[in-house]
Every structure is written in C-alpha cells, then in structure tokens.
C-alpha cells in the first residue's frame, strides 16, 4: 500500500523525468514492434508461398480407378501429407482451358494425363521432405512421373532460412538496444533519487522497503511504455496498410507478450539499478 503510494508520488514529484522515461521505453519498444511487424509479415508471406508447394504425380492411362483410390488413401495417410486430390483427364483439360484460354482449342480430350495432387503439411515443405514424399509416390507402378518444382522448393527454403536467421539476429539486436536504453532511463530515475535512498537507509529503512516503490514504478512505466509502443505500432501498421502495402498485425497474444515484456524490463531494470545502488551506499 505504502509502496504503491510512494510509486505514484514519485510520478508526481518528477513528472518530467517520469514522462521522459515512459517515452523512451515506448520508442525503444516501438522500434522492436516495427521490426516484429516486418518479421511477422515476411513470415506470413513465406508461409503463404510455401502453401503452394505441391507434388503432382501423373497417372498412366488406363489405370484402374480402384488402384488410384487405394493409392490416394495410402498417400493421404503419410504423416507429411495434408491433402490429396485426384485430377482426372477431364478435370485437367478443363483447368488447362481455363488457365490458358488462348490455347483452348489446342487441347483435346485425352491429351492431358490424370494426376494425383499432394499438398504437404506446414513444417514438411522443405526440399528433403518433399523429395522423400515424391520418391515414395513414384514407387507406384502406375505413376509415370512425379513433379514438384525442385529448384523452386530449394530456393524457397533458402529464403526462409536466411529470413529466419536475419530475423533472430536483428530481433536480438533490437531487443538488446531496447533493454539497454530502458535500463539507462531507469537508472537515471534511481540516481535522481539517490539522496532520498541514502536518507532512507540512514533512518533505518530495510532494502526491501526502499526497493519496492522503485519496482512498482518500473513496472508501471514498463506497462505504460509498452502500451504506448503497441499503440504506435498499431497506428504505423494502419498507415502502412492504407498507403503502402496490405499487412497483418500481431496476434493478440503476441501484443500482450510485448507489453508484458516492457513491464518485465521495467521491473528488472529497476530491481537491478536499485540493487546496485543499495550495495554502494
């Protein structure tokens, strides 16, 4: 109770420093948020492209439909496989005519082979897995040929890996800088009150008693800064959506984690700063 009151009083006694602290936290986390926004959208884009990874197995003419149905059942039971569709000769023709309208008269019935189209589950779309599934499908006797755009799948995997590593490295760098800036801000707030801390110790305050209001203050600043950062990121995302490119925002849980992260940085930063200070005086 006293700690809460003291924490609030600290805001009132040094409003400028408090507001500056919150703004610093907000902008540090805003930078992290913007980066996160880019990362989330790149990830989503890659995932949507990856969804198109597809294995197409061409069926020999005259294969019994029971054999095909059995094979579809088998392939559908592979752990990697999300969906299996059968494309008959007629469907293939219809599709070709639709997709390549200007050549519609070129295609005759029976010209295109029937095929089985296999889509893989997320996480199984890397070149190794695709190759392995394709190889297993190719073992059926009535399969003439299996295609999956090997080169494209490999390129996609490489892009995903680079994006992942760059994302982690940049994310860590942004987060480290944010933590350092926030830590310094909080340290300033503690130093500004070093006289008060020294006097508290002289009159017999315990370390816990001295620390508590600072922890609450740090936590509250973290929450406010984190909330402001979330708002800024959201506004930025709206503006980008309207003027530049369609993007998606963080899922709710990630946004909450971000704000809580701010609060925890505030809390820990205060704890460390006050602790260090207490050890010295």
């Amino acid at each position, binding site marked *: 109770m006293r700690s809460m009151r003291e924490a609030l009083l600290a805001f009132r006694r040094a409003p400028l420093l408090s507001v500056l602290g919150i703004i610093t936290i907000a902008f540090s986390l805003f930078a992290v948020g913007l980066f996160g926004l880019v990362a989330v959208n790149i990830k989503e884009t890659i995932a949507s492209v990856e969804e198109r990874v597809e294995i197409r197995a061409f069926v020999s003419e005259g294969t019994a439909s029971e054999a095909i149905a059995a094979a579809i059942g088998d392939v559908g039971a592979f752990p990697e496989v999300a969906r299996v569709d059968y494309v008959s000769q007629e469907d293939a023709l219809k599709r070709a005519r639709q997709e390549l309208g200007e050549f519609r008269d070129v295609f005759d019935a029976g010209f295109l082979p029937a095929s089985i189209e296999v889509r893989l589950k997320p996480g199984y779309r890397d070149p190794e897995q695709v190759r392995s599934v394709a190889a297993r499908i190719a073992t059926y006797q009535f399969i003439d040929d299996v295609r999956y755009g090997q080169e494209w799948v490999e390129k996609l995997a490489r892009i995903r890996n680079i994006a992942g590593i760059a994302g982690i490295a940049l994310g860590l760098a942004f987060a480290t800088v944010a933590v350092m800036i926030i830590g310094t801000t909080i340290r300033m707030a503690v130093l500004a009150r070093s006289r008060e801390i020294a006097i*508290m110790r002289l*009159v*017999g305050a315990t*370390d816990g008693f001295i620390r508590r209001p600072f922890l609450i203050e740090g936590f509250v600043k973290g929450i406010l800064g984190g909330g402001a950062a979330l708002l800024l990121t959201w506004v930025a995302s709206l503006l980008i959506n309207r003027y530049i490119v369609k993007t998606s925002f963080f899922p709710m849980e990630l946004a909450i984690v971000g704000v809580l992260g701010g609060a925890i940085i505030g809390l820990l930063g205060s704890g460390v700063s006050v602790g260090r200070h207490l050890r010295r005086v």
Partner: protein
Amino acid sequence: MIRFTDVTKEYPRTGVALTDVSFHVAKGEFVFLTGPSGSGKSTILKLIYMEELPTAGEVRVSGLSTVDVKRSEIAKLRRKLGIVFQDFRLLEDRSAEANIAFALEVTGAPRSQIPSRVSRLLTQVGLASKGGAFPRELSGGEQQRVAIARALVNEPYVLIADEPTGNLDDRATRGIFQLLREINASGTAVVMATHNLDLIRRSDYRTIEINRGQIVYDSGETKPVQPEELV
C-alpha cells in the same frame, strides 16, 4: 552501549583511517569527538551506525557486533540511533513535517500516529509553527532542527552528530548545542564530532581527540560505567 575494541579501519583507496582505537560510550553520556579534518572522526561515527565495518577489531552498538551483523540488522540498529550531519540531508521537495514523517513511515509507524508525533517533535525542537515550510524557506539553524527532529523520531539511545554546527553561525550554533544538551538531559546519549573548540571549552563533557586515526586524548568517561552496560 557503544564499545570500540582495537578497531582498525582501512579504506581501499585512501589507506588507513583508524588504528587500534578502543573506547566505550555509556548510556546517556555526552561525548565530543574532536581533531583535525581527516583525522578519522567521521569514520568513527560511520562505524557506530555501521555504514562502514572495521578492517580489524570489533565495534559493538546496543548489543550488535560488527563481527557478525547482518544487513537487515543494520537497518534495525539505525532505528535506535539518530544521525545528524553538517549538511542536514533533508529532502528538498518536502516540507519540514513531511521530512520528519518520512522517517516515521520508513520505520513502519502506524499512520494514524504520525501527525501527532511529528507535531510533538517539531515543538520539541522549537519549530512548532514552521512544519509546512520547505527546507529552502528555513535558515540553516532551522534546517538542522528539522534534521534533529527527524533523528529523534524513534526515541534513539544515541544521537550521532557529525559536525552539526559546521555550517551555522554563532547564534545558531549555540541554539543547536543547547538543543543537543536538552536531548542528552532527557537520557539520550550524544556523540558529536566537532571542530568547535569553543563549544568544548564551554561545557565539561567528555572529549576524545583523534589525530591521524588514533586517540591522542580522552578526558575520561563522565559517568561511572554500570556492569549491565558492559555489553
């Protein structure tokens, strides 16, 4: 109540501050610590309120020994001591009342009792009408009175005063000294470091003179030591 036994204090950077210092302060005694600047007076005071711990030897204060004291015990010890400095160490952004109340809050006094205790203390130090004033609105002597009131909040056994009149003119010095004597008369021991030989001469209190970290003169304990005080 306060006992130094062969106390040596060495600071890592500035070297030896005290060498083999031994003395005892009895309950209710008034002791002047005197000596040139840098002689070790402040170090002795810091050892009493355990801001510093001795490099060798032992300091015992109201039953606590520097040999095995814990950090949390030091906080509790300070509630039984009152500490006053030359530079007052008041919080500039709070009124005189709030400065005193602050010390009560820190030590967990019931909130309902704080206002009446604060006003009693202000009366005791002669500032009954200035509770609402901020430190910058008070004279040096008045600020020191607020600091003394703050030091008295927990009815300490000992008042430790480090050059309490060092920043004050003669008149204010006499007023503060008189106040310290009154506090002593009511049973609180006072250990006061001072340069002011005039004050020492004008009273017949015990005087310990320090030079280069050693006791060079001790006029002797002013009261007989009772066995139960030899803790």
